[in-house]
């Protein structure tokens, strides 16, 4: 009986976390302009993702650089490479998403 209760408690905790992850789905949007890539990370209701980890990968999944979002959810960096760039936002607790900036968009922003 004790074992079943314990299992239910674990299940409850797991379900609560997954529900929260959906309700607070995190997003990252990026664009390139005058040699810089601008990223902004936000929750659907517009709140900024503060101190979220940003990871930038090329088309071969090689990590090019990483950084953290400021209090407005922003993180900017110089264009590292003329390639498809996969930019990942990791706000912890399973709040993770990515945005791919196509090579053409990167080149256009050089």
């Amino acid at each position, binding site marked *: 009986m004790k074992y079943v209760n314990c299992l239910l408690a674990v299940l409850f905790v797991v379900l609560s976390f997954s529900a929260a992850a959906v309700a607070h*789905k995190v*997003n990252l*949007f990026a664009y390139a302009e005058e040699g810089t890539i601008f990223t*902004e990370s*936000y929750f*659907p*209701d*517009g709140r900024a993702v503060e101190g979220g980890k940003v990871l930038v990968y090329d088309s071969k999944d090689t990590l090019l650089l990483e950084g953290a979002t400021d209090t407005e959810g922003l993180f900017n960096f110089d264009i590292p490479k003329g390639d498809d760039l996969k930019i990942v936002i990791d706000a912890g607790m399973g709040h993770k998403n990515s*945005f791919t900036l196509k090579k053409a968009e990167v080149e256009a922003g050089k």
Partner: protein
Amino acid sequence: MRTKTIAALFMIPAAFMILAVHSAQAHFGAIIPSDDIITQDDDKTLDVQVKFIHPMEMHYMEMAKPKQFGVLHDGKKTDLIGSLAAVKGKSPDQDQEFTFWSTGYQIRRPGDYTFYVAPAPYWEPAEDLFIVHYTKVCVNAFGLEEGWDQHVGLETEIIPFTRPYGLWTGNLFTGQVLLKGKPVPFAEVEIEYLNETPGNINIVVPPADPYVTQVVKADVNGVFSYAMPKAGWWGFSALNQAEWTLTHDGREKGVEIGAVYWVRTRDMK
């Protein structure tokens, strides 16, 4: 391609059957974008069509160039009237083509985009009045769900109380009717399904006149609700008489002003 052919096969007899019903023919201003949700994998250029139609019957009416057409995003209005191009269209049972308007709009930033139109007054001899339907539709971009409940500030408009995108078939749409910024108590709202919805292969054939246009009344605060039973685009139209008049053939005529809002539903599967 195949669904298109099937759709066309269904449309012709369906159109004749609709004609036979002799329907009520409610006019609707319409703004139909190519998508209501833009994600990073989508084409970021929206095709936006502006029309004056009978949505259930698929009939087009000649539409003059609108007086105002724009988009509200991040609290800022952008005039897009110069981008509109005239296009011709008709229903399968119409023997003449009519003008509607179209534009390509590039989505560049996250957030909600509310497109709005203030058309030129349309003279309707059958009703002995002019019709002006202020029409809106909202498109969401890149997961930022902000802006959809903002007022455009039109003479009359529907403010959505339901987030107007990401709606399932069967969802309730709730909105508030405003006239000069104030709620309209007990406003009458007409609702029609857009039979011409892209991908709709089962053209709806109304079994009797009252099925063409659904009618609900708002409460004392101008708030109304309707549950949408089929996937596709739905138009909500609240009609009021303007305090101003226009002249036709030297005589003063009344003006029907409509607040129209469009939303799209999808099946759960």
